[in-house]
């Protein structure tokens, strides 16, 4: 199991986070959910994550700030943004900082999973 990739899901909305975790579970993927960027960063020091799925707008530290923070820490963890109705500027900023994916809510499940598998280097299906 140890070489099965571990995914982090950061979203302050409990239902959205729980739904994402259940989707990853049915796809046979290991994931841990965090209600805030801070909670994730604490675990980030001790765990190895293969991918970060995060919301953009969250209290205290948002997704873009979290991405910047990870980059400044020298991490190259792929970041997939899942967000509701964000503007072009946010998309541009995330992409410029090297986002691996950018999805609006409600999530287009198939495209999202395809992107995630690509990031994780897994075969499709």
């Amino acid at each position: 199991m140890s070489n099965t990739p571990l995914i982090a899901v950061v979203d302050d909305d409990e239902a959205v986070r729980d739904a994402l975790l259940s989707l990853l579970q049915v796809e046979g993927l290991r994931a841990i959910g965090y209600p805030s960027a801070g909670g994730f960063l604490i675990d980030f020091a001790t765990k190895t994550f293969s991918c970060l799925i995060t919301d953009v707008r969250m209290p205290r530290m948002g997704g873009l700030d979290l991405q910047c923070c990870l980059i400044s820490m020298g991490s190259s963890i792929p970041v997939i943004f899942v967000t509701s109705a964000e503007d072009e500027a946010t998309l541009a900023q995330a992409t410029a900082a090297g986002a691996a994916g950018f999805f609006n809510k409600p999530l287009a499940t198939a495209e999202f999973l395809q992107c995630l598998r690509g990031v994780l280097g897994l075969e499709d299906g």
Partner: protein
Amino acid sequence: MLAPACEEVSAADPCGHEIQRHDGACWAFDISEARDLIEAASSGDRPQGWSKALLARLRVVEANANAVHLFGSYAGRERMLGQSILEFWPIEGWHVLPGLIVGAVTGQPRSRARKLRVKSLVLKDPVLTAWMSDDPALAQTLFLAIFAEPVDERSFWALRASQERYNNLIHHLPFAFLEVDSRAQADIFEDLRRKGLKDVGAYLDTNPADIQRSCQIVRITDVNKSAVELFGARHVSELVGPVDPLFAASPESARRVMINHFEGSRSYSEVMKLRTLDGRLLDVSMSVIYPTRPEQLDITLIMLEDITERLRTEAQLRQLQSDYTRAARISMLGELASSIAHEVNQPLSAIRTYAETSLRWLSREEPNLQKVTQLTARISDNALHAGEIVHRIRGMTTRQVPRSASLDLNEVVDEALHFVRHEIETRSIDLSVRLGRELPPIWGDRVQLQQVVVNLLLNAVQAIHSGSESSGSIELTTDLDERGAVTLNIRDDGPGVAEGDLDRVFQSFFTTKDEGMGIGLAICQSIIAAHGGAIGASNWPGGGARFWFSLPAHR
């Protein structure tokens, strides 16, 4: 001491001459119709009802000014002439008259007066006197007089005369006045009271026919010009009579007027519906002024004011205010549009992902029904949650008449926070909420008070946003102030309000923001004022603004 005589009396009128000689209230009656009854009674033939029959046959042929003042002030002398004594003599005095009259008519010498001390509610120690004149021309004329002690420095008669002047005044007032004779009702009440009745409301509930009967026996005796116009009548006489047309459109009002009469109120007022004689339905403000014993006035006065137009204007004004408040609410929600969209999108998004996940569990070779059941339950929960959000927004936007109810301010705050929480969180503003425990309820419209709280919070968010790059903090507290009012305080650490603007922040169209219309705080003030509360703004010494309002506790 004496009221002036109404007119000069010619010496050729012996009857007029006789009654004008007396200080008291004096009448002359034609007894020709009653003579046989009087003589029969004199010889001991007194069948049942003889006394009332006797009184009914006496016709007034003359009355002096004081007699008119005493009993005829509603109708005047002309109304009294030709009438039976029963028409104006109080019922309580009926039993003393027949014996006195028989004695005077059949006694010898004829000119000797028969006197009787009677108890009266309107006169002090009155003496009733009956006599026949020696003048052969007056053989069919009985004289009856009431003499009474002056009750205060002004005599009773002078009081009556001043009342007449007062009646003249009333006739020319621009309000509708009805003079009502409720003595018959007062007697019934007196009787009930003597029998120990305390709760007249309960009594009338079990004897509703008594209300109808009262509306018949209580009579309108005179009305002024304004009342004639108000009722759409052509002449005073159309209104003189039983009082029941007054209450045709609101029988419950008659009941309340009676209860207040019984309980000895001096006056009673209410707004009621009035059906006019020409069929219009009006809203009128009715004030009843009861005769109060032991004072002399024995007339119930009813004043009516047509407030139909005023109520209509007020209703229109209320509608306008409510529309304006709603417009401000929608404008406020507009500022929160992206937050609200986010709020609704979250549960929808979760539902979509749960559903997709369920399908994936189902499409496995061995479907995991346990998982599907679990996810379906979460779908249901989230749909419910989304529905609640929509319901809250609809509550803020639908056009509805403000509805007052007993409210818990803390609940109002909780609901208001739903609208702004996301706005506050995504701007990384620290919100601390401290709700006072066991606050008394307040009385008001839930939606409007939510609007005030949302508005003040949004104001704080925008103040912080405009201030600096650093994230700010908002502190919301509810409490009970030292005067027992329920208060809400919202404090932010933004730049505060410029000192010169503190007095103006609640004015309409005052704004320091580019996008705002400046109606938010003005609406807050009008809502709080309409709830009988107070609202204010101040700056903290350490920076930042404090907005507060207080509402009276509703117990």
